[in-house]
Each structure stands twice: as C-alpha cells, then as structure tokens.
C-alpha cells in the first residue's frame, strides 16, 4: 500500500533562518506531488506541484522554493524565513501521470516563524 511521510511535525524557526521540509511517498511510482499551505481558519493554498523529477510548477510568487531530486521525494525550502511564512504545510500526492484523481495527504508540518 502507498504511504506518504512528511516531517518534521512541528518546527519553530527564527526569522531569517533557512527552511527544509521533506516529503516522501512509498509504494507507488511517478506520483504527482504537491505542497500546500494552510493559514489558520483558511483553506489550502497550492504552492508548488511536480509531475516528474526536476519539474516544478510554482503557483504563488513567494519566499519559498521546491525541488524534486528523486521520483518520490519532494522538498520545500527557503533561504530566509519571514514571519508571514508561518502556517501549516501539507504535502500531497496523486497517482501519475494523469491529472484529476484523488489526493493523499501527509500529516502536515506546523511551522512557526518567530
């Protein structure tokens, strides 16, 4: 069966520090991968998605970047965190290569920038 791992679960980082959140999927190949951010009491905002290794689509210009160094690994990064980067970050995958299927989510990372 397929599983998605996202870590860490919680993170407190000072303003200006770097960020690296990692997400891995097991039990499938060539998944479509996604990073979302959820502000308190809000819906999910799509940040990045990837349909293959090295292919990253950015939806929102911001202080963050994403990379997909391996088929089932998706990394969210920042060189210098801002207070506004605080939020709940969720990684998700859908079966590739076709679009329009159900998404499977990780348990999320609660990021607080102080």
């Amino acid at each position, binding site marked *: 069966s397929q599983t998605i791992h996202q870590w860490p679960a919680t993170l407190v980082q000072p303003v200006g520090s770097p960020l690296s959140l990692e997400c891995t999927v097991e039990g499938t190949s060539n998944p479509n991968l996604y990073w979302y951010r959820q502000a308190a009491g809000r*819906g*999910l905002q799509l940040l990045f998605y990837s349909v293959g290794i090295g292919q990253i689509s950015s939806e929102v210009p911001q202080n963050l970047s994403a990379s997909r160094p391996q088929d089932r690994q998706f990394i969210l990064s920042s060189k210098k965190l801002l207070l506004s980067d605080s939020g709940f970050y969720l990684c*998700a995958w859908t079966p590739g290569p076709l*679009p329009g299927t*159900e998404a499977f989510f990780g348990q999320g990372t609660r990021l607080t920038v102080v």
Partner: protein
Amino acid sequence: SQQGEEDPQALSIQEGENATMNCSYKTSINNLQWYRQNSGRGLVHLILIRSNEREKHSGRLRVTLDTSKKSSSLLITASRAADTASYFCATNPISGAGSYQLTFGKGTKLSVIP
C-alpha cells in the same frame, strides 16, 4: 486563488441529525472532491464526483453536483460525534496545465454534539 466556497463556515448539530454543507465554484471543472480534516491533521479524501455525474453515495455520505449552478452539496446522515471535523470541497479544472491542480475552499467546520 480559492475557487470553492463552502457554506456555512461553521455548523453545530446534535448527534443523529443530518449535516448538509454546500460548495460553490466559479469555473468549469473535470471533477469535484470532498475532503475531511481533523484538527491539526492532514486531509482525508471522502468522495469524488465527476462533472457528468449528478449524485454519488458512499456509506453515510451523499454528494450532489449541479454544474449549471456551479454548486455541490455534501450530506452526512445520522451524524456521530466522530464526524466532528472541517470539510473542504476541492475542484479540479477541466483541462490544460491546471488540470493537475486541486483548488480548495475555506471549509465548513462541523461540530457534532453527543
């Protein structure tokens, strides 16, 4: 940007009652999906309804879709305290690069009182 808008934002009912949540969206879709999120956790897929379907059932869940009105509803029958969660609708665009995306609304927070 968020395409789906759920209504109401919050709903409180007694155990055993039915809960109805609505979702409106703006553009043409390939499918519409409903997700559940327990507090501080990742989202869990509940049901997917395609644009050529009008109604779908899964256990105690019933989803309707009216593409002419660009709206959907989620009905949970005989609610239980364990149904307490936030419920989100997500739309999948009909074609193009955007077809890999899911656009989420802000969610309905459901509280089921024992």
